[in-house]
């Protein structure tokens, strides 16, 4: 990345944090909001909480990270699998695609409590919530990618004695990779939100769980520290997927 890409957002972030720091430390923020100053931590207090409670935070962050990775992996396998299946089977695609899209209008948060009833308090319901929200961007993008291959390319392969499986492996899957990565980048970003929702409806560890505890005990500085860690997780995962994309799509 060029300096011209990094500097403006960096300046903006520093300005924002500085303004927040001044407003919170002087009590101005709490006063205007009509709140107890305890409820409005400054960035320096959040940083202090981040450092002092690093063991607890790290432990719970690892739980959440693990849930996100596992849920994302499940969505990747099922999403790509479903895309390939629907791509190879035209009638199935026609029949199910509208339903897949319609399913997207059901807020996953609403069914999360039911998932807890079904799968208990273990990692099951969190996996299910994360996988459910990651599934859609991955499956839809991959399917678009598989269908993006120009007809003459497939015809060329057919006259060159390619079986259906070869066309899939040599032409359609590579062509769908950029689409798959676009879907995966959206998926990892929303996966973290999914993990928090999953933990909110029933968990005994994880950053989402910790946030609930801290909220009840008015540990607002640590609560913000958890939020900070959640976005760090999302950003790092996003960056990792973007890096993998650059490495695996070498032909562009």
């Amino acid at each position, binding site marked *: 990345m060029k300096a011209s890409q990094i500097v403006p957002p960096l300046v903006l972030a520093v300005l924002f944090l500085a303004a927040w720091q001044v407003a919170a430390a002087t009590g101005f923020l709490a006063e205007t909001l009509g709140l107890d100053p305890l409820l409005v931590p400054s960035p320096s207090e959040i940083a202090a909480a981040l450092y002092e409670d690093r063991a607890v935070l790290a432990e719970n962050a690892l739980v959440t990270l693990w849930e996100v990775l596992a849920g994302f992996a499940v969505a990747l396998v099922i999403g790509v699998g479903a895309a390939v299946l629907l791509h190879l089977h035209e009638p199935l695609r026609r029949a199910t695609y509208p339903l897949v899209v319609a399913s997207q209008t059901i807020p996953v948060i609403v069914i999360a409590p039911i998932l807890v009833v079904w799968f208990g308090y273990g990692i099951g319901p969190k996996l299910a919530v994360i996988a459910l929200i990651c599934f859609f961007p991955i499956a839809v993008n991959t399917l678009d990618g598989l269908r993006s291959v*120009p007809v*003459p*390319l497939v*015809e*060329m*392969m*057919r*006259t*060159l*004695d*390619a*079986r259906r499986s*070869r066309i899939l492996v*040599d*032409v359609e899957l*590579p062509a769908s990779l950029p689409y798959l990565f676009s879907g995966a980048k959206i998926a990892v970003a929303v996966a973290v939100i999914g993990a928090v929702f999953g933990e909110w409806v029933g968990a005994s560890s994880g950053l989402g769980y910790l946030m609930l505890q801290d909220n009840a005990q008015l540990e607002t500085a640590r609560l913000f520290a958890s939020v900070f860690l959640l976005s760090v997780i999302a950003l790092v995962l996003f960056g990792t997927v973007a890096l993998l994309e650059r490495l695996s799509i*070498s*032909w*562009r």
Partner: protein
Amino acid sequence: MTAMVQADGVGRRFGGLEVLEGIDFGLDEGEVLSVIGPSGCGKSTLLGLIAGLDRPTTGTITVGGGTASDDRLARCAYMPQEDCLLPWFSALDNAALALRNQGRGRKVAREEAFPVFERLGLGGFEDAKPAELSGGMRQRVAFARTWLAGKSVLLLDEPLASLDGLTRRSMQAWLAPLLAGGERSAVLVTHDLDEALYLGDRVLVLSGRPGRVLGIREAPGRGEMDPVEASGSRAFSESRNELASLLESASPGDQIGGSQS
């Protein structure tokens, strides 16, 4: 000689759109047939029909004695209008695609493909990605890929159309001896009268849509000279004028002609 490709009363309609009508022609073994006609008259459609990628609405097409689509697919290699190289494969892997499809391992396929690859002047570029090649080289890789499929009939859809004038001339010069070798039959679609006469044994002229056969003419002394020399000879310019007037009679105002015009 036995006919390698035989079309009898072939017609193709897409919904209400009549694209080809009553097409009759035969292609001998080892013969090259150039096909010219106005834009949109169904030239690519005709190649797809011969290849077995599509079925005629009326009439039959026989390739090497077989009439079914699968028979035609098994005997034809099709080079689409765009080069259709796979960007994620190297140049040599693209050329070896058919060999891979026919069941060879990657290493064996590359070894088998290499002599043809080298003969087309592509030596040293085995591992270059298509994006790193010039237009002329991409076209040669696409041709190598078509050739290496080992089919008896080559279907070439404007193989040189995307190239600039000079590159095009030099590509015609190396394509000519390969096609003249008599090993393969070929149907060559082109927009260029000179190219049709220079590379083909005969030239089939199609009318504007719905495409019908306006006539089939012999091409004088094909591939014997270099393309520039050939286009200057008298027999050549006579055939050229004849084809031009044939085309004009079918599609007044349509811009078709040699690369010089």
